[in-house]
């Protein structure tokens, strides 16, 4: 993988391992996020394949029950926190400055720190497999199952600490993105001229900024329950396990929108460009995204309809859950309206974007079904829920991310991914995902509970389980084809034009891949689709001044050191607090080094 990382470098004089460890360039950090996220996507996929292999036939013996619990828990944690979020962050890192016409994010070193803290958290969480067992209480870790009494091992401690570290990383990155988008837009780029992707990045940043602290508090309380004998969530001593569910889902439901909104943003970029039409109903999409951001904080208890909330909360959360379907539905029609009457260019990115609309809508509709508490009570903890969430997260988020990879690959690497292989990837993935997840609707309605490690023959579940497993292998094949495509493409010369799709947003105004300073001259913004406006009004890009020196922030190793300090603080909680104390010293030392380091 080292060659692949090295090949993504855009400036030869800044290559080599040290340059990657000390980089503060948003494009290199984006590449680091992307590569790391994709490797964890492969790991999470391997976990999924193991799960499906175990469930292919009744009474499977591939893994035992304990290992199965670890696999489904780590599959979820890996895909959510280590694959989809960092791949989303990769695009945000790379394209926020490019789309708003800036030369970097507002805090380049903070950006590097976010990555190193993310990597620390990812390694800590994954290392649990080799250090006494992975977390096995499901990704939402319901107490009392995850309390000390029923989970005496260290797996849940890795969960608590790993998620705290990953949360810190996401918080730092989101603060950085929010400030960048609010404060670093090119002249003329008013809020309502920003690309929709930037609006969505802003909404996602605020969702994380406002929801992560709630999770952190829950994790601190769970840690105290496990380590120091408090009873926040222990019934019988005055504690309340339902409180954990409230706290977790006040974070967890906005988190769902953190996962899906970036994919919606990518599709909102790809479809207008490929349809050669401006986005249909720009302001409707902007307001829909913002209202999803607000309503996303008011629907959490629909995850808890079967806990005995009482009638009034059930009605309120049922209504708010139905309400949040409205802005989502608006977007579906916006995308359809964008394509309607367009001269559509059917490339791989378009395939993924169009399929996203269909598969995400299936997941969205089964989601609205769960807004009804009585229906939800039937589906609770069944494979129907598994089908729903995978249509949203695979049919939605992953399809959107792949659309983005094919769309932006020429900008990031100077190379176009192979189209024939890309379409093979698409068809394998599209068929595979429907083959895997659609039968899970039937399994759920036939009564198959989620998270069981095996089942007996004769319950009517054999056929669809076997079909789902074939689907999982089909998805694995599609990912393999993509990896081959990626590796083959990276060996080709950089021949991609600066604007291969006739894109409208500012990232297509600079070279492919962009220079370290992004733009020789910051392009003027007259319109929502600045490059189309300039094309249609015969406005040339302003020429850069002859002898300009563009000052870029120098590389720094303090983010890496501080990231290591944060990792030590976390590892100390899992082993001995002396390491935490040492980590605090490292963090304070690197903060001073950071602040006193000259950046001019």
């Amino acid at each position, binding site marked *: 993988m080292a060659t692949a990382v090295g090949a993504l470098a855009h400036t030869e004089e800044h290559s080599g391992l040290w340059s990657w460890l000390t980089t503060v360039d948003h494009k290199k950090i984006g590449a680091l996020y992307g590569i790391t996220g994709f490797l964890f996507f492969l790991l999470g996929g391997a976990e999924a394949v193991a799960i499906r292999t175990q469930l292919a036939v009744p009474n499977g013996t591939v893994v035992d029950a304990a290992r199965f619990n670890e696999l489904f828990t780590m599959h979820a944690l890996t895909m959510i926190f280590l694959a989809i979020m960092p791949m989303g962050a990769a695009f945000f890192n790379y394209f926020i400055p490019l789309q708003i016409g800036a030369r970097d994010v507002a805090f380049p070193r903070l950006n590097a720190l976010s990555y190193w803290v993310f990597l620390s958290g990812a390694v800590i969480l994954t290392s649990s497999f080799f250090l006494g067992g992975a977390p096995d209480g499901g990704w939402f870790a319901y107490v009392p199952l995850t309390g000390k009494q029923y989970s005496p091992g260290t797996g849940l401690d890795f969960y608590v600490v790993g998620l705290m570290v990953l949360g810190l990383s996401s918080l730092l990155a989101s603060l950085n993105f929010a*400030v960048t988008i609010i404060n670093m837009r090119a002249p003329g780029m008013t809020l309502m001229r920003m690309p929709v992707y930037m609006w969505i990045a802003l909404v996602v940043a605020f969702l994380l900024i406002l929801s992560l602290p709630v999770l952190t508090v829950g994790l*601190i309380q769970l840690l105290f329950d496990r380590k120091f004998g*408090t009873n926040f969530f222990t019934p019988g001593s005055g504690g309340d396990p339902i409180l954990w569910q409230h*706290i977790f889902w006040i974070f967890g439901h906005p988190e769902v929108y953190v996962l899906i909104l970036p994919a919606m943003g990518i599709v909102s970029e790809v479809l207008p460009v490929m349809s050669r039409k401006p986005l249909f109903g720009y302001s409707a999409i902007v307001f829909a995204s913002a209202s999803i951001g607000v309503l996303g904080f008011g629907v959490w208890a629909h995850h808890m309809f079967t806990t005995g909330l009482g009638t009034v909360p059930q009605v309120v959360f049922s209504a708010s859950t139905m309400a949040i379907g409205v802005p989502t539905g608006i977007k579906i029609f916006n995308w359809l309206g964008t394509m309607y009457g367009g001269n559509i260019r059917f490339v791989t990115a378009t395939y993924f974007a169009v399929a996203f609309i269909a598969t995400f809508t299936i997941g969205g509709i089964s989601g609205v079904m769960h807004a009804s508490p009585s229906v939800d009570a039937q589906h609770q903890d069944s494979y129907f829920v598994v089908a729903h969430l995978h249509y949203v997260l695979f049919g939605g988020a992953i399809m959107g991310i792949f659309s983005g990879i094919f769309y932006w690959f020429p900008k990031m690497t100077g190379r176009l991914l192979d189209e024939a292989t890309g379409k093979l990837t698409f068809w394998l993935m599209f068929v595979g995902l429907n083959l895997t997840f659609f039968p899970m609707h039937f399994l759920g309605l036939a009564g198959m509970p989620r998270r069981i490690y095996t089942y007996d023959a004769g319950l009517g579940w054999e056929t669809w389980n076997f079909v789902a497993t074939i689907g999982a292998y089909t998805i694995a094949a599609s990912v393999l084809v993509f990896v081959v495509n990626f590796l083959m493409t990276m060996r080709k010369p950089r021949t991609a034009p600066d604007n291969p799709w006739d894109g409208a947003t500012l990232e297509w105004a600079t070279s492919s891949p962009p220079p370290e300073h992004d733009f020789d001259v910051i392009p003027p913004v007259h319109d929502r689709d600045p490059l189309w406006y300039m094309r249609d009004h015969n406005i040339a890009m302003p020429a850069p001044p002859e002898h300009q020196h563009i000052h870029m922030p120098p590389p720094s190793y303090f983010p890496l050191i501080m990231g290591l300090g944060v990792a030590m603080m976390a590892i100390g909680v899992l082993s001995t607090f002396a390491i935490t104390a040492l980590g605090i010293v490292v963090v304070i030392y690197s903060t*001073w080094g950071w602040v006193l380091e000259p950046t001019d």
Partner: protein
Amino acid sequence: MAAATHHTAPAEHATTMGIDHRKLLMWIFLASECLFFGSLISTYMVFRGDSIVGPYPAEILDIPLTSTSTFVLLMSSLTMVLAVYGAQHGRPTMMRVMLLGTIILGLGFLGFQTYEFRTFGAEGLVPSTNQFGATFFVLTGLHGTHVGVGVLYLASLLLASFRRTGLGRDQVLHIDIAGLYWHFVDIVWIVIFTIIYLIPQ
């Protein structure tokens, strides 16, 4: 305050909204902190009166003592304001003295808190004792951690102000941003003090 920010932002780093990046970062971070303390305070409220063994809050809280420590912390906000004033009006000695005063008052508050925690421990209240212990220690402990981080933050600024270059051309901004953090931590304490100590259970 806006004028000060405008004054300190060099022309080549002009921002879209006219506010410095670092100040905007602190404001948004404080929004995040609101949810952090909001969750902790909510947990305290949820478990109010749910302790099934003593010591109960009414038996153990020393309101005169904590009122004194609250007064100390509130006075630190006054000295912080005066430190910002000193920085803005080119009076470095005033700025340094007031920063030092803020640090001392912050340390005084932490001293009171340490004394209170130790006393509670001696009287048999630790986090694992009951719901009051768990929610009280986690909430006030994390608030105290924030005060401690603030003391380190202000002490770093005070030390750096004695360098040859002082705090650089953005001195006013640095003090201003630290002030935002400090006042926030104070305001949160007013809420915590009211809810834990003043409202009878």
